[in-house]
């Protein structure tokens, strides 16, 4: 296969319809994953097990929101509209986040009787950071130079995010019986949604053939999860089936619309407001 030339500017990307379509699709997936999962993280503020965790988790969610913003800015350069608008003003069906990112933290809401599940949160954030590492490593080899540059920078920051959740995984597995039981339950629930994370949606072939991403994420992700299962004494992932409702094609679980409405409440009152 001959190497396709690098695309160095937004104008060049817009001149090639197929490449542009594939690039926009991937950017929405990555930005929406970060934004929506960061919002789920932010709902834990003040509710996590200890104060140092509050500092760490909120710092990570701030970084993730910043990563989402940088990706929305790439979309803005590509003619998709203003970054804030992309984050807060789209219909739920325009979001491309994986269904795993939007799942509630547990019962209740942070405003009313939160009965959140810390084991599920640890496993979900950990598994997300695993795929995010793989996705960023692939993005560094993207034909779209602005994305490759951004991904290289993000990787240095994301190192600490993955490391943080690895520490929790180590601490909560292989200890007490109750912890192992709860972590195994959480792991099983997260694994059922995991294929949504490595899926590149209905446009996957175009994303790969146009060189927006150089390789598929599914195989390395499955390998990473198998290694995790071995390290933490958790069940190996066996069946690998993309959930019917997975988010990548714009079809979402019932949890997403009310979440977006709440997130965007203030922005929608005064879109021109400065923060």
């Amino acid at each position, binding site marked *: 296969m001959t190497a396709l030339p690098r695309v160095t500017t937004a104008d060049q990307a817009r001149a090639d319809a197929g490449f542009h379509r594939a690039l926009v699709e991937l950017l929405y997936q990555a930005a929406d994953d970060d934004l929506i999962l960061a919002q789920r993280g932010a709902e834990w503020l003040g509710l996590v097990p200890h104060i*140092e965790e509050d*500092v*760490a988790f909120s*710092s*990570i969610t*701030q*970084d*993730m*929101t*910043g*990563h989402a*913003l*940088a990706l929305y800015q790439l979309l803005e350069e590509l003619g998709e509209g203003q970054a804030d608008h992309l984050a807060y003003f789209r219909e739920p069906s325009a979001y491309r986040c994986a269904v795993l990112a939007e799942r509630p933290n547990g019962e209740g809401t942070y405003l009313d009787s939160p009965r959140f599940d810390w084991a599920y949160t640890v496993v979900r954030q950990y598994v997300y950071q695993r795929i995010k590492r793989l996705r960023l490593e692939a993005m560094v080899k993207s034909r779209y130079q*602005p994305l490759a*540059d*951004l991904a*290289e*920078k*993000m990787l*240095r*920051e994301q*190192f*600490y995010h993955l*490391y*943080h959740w690895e520490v929790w995984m180590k601490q909560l597995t292989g200890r007490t019986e109750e912890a192992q039981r709860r972590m195994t339950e959480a792991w099983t629930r997260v694994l059922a949604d995991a294929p949504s994370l490595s899926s590149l949606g209905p446009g996957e072939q175009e994303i790969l053939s146009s060189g927006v991403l150089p390789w598929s994420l599914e195989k390395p992700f499955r390998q990473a999860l198998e290694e995790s299962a071995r390290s933490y004494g958790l069940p190996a992932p066996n069946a690998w089936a993309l959930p019917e409702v997975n988010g990548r094609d714009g079809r979402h679980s019932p949890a997403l619309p009310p979440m977006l409405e709440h997130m965007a409440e203030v922005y929608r009152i005064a879109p021109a407001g400065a923060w």
Partner: protein
Amino acid sequence: MSEADLQSRVMAALDEVMDPEIRGLSLVDLGMVERVEVDGGQVRVQLIPTYVGCPALGLMKADVERRLAAVPGVESVTVEFLRKPLWTTDRITPRGRERLKAVGIAPPAGSGPTEHWTPECPYCGSTQVHRENVFGPTSCRSIFYCDACRNPFEAIKPV
């Protein structure tokens, strides 16, 4: 005034623009100023963001614009953030490292992310320290405790 004169006045002014989150440390100390171009009275400043999502970037841009607008000879100011080169912790200048210590923040031991690193306590210089939290009050800082002088302190996280 020649362009070279204006260039040096602009550089001196940039050295007075402080990090909004670490007072006492300028954008020059942080190694954020990549390029300054002077064309007549038009000044173009290219900055490298420390963190992708650093919430202080907007403030920094506004502070640079305000400070440079007050430099005699400057007619317009454009501030841009670059994606390349990457900001890494070894861009902090020697003076920046001293200034960090002066406000109780340990300068980075090197660059590139790592699970374990040992900063020197900014108060007593000891390396008998332990980490309380990889994360701290801002994206770029961690929290440590000095077992020698028994002071908590912050440290710049290596990236």
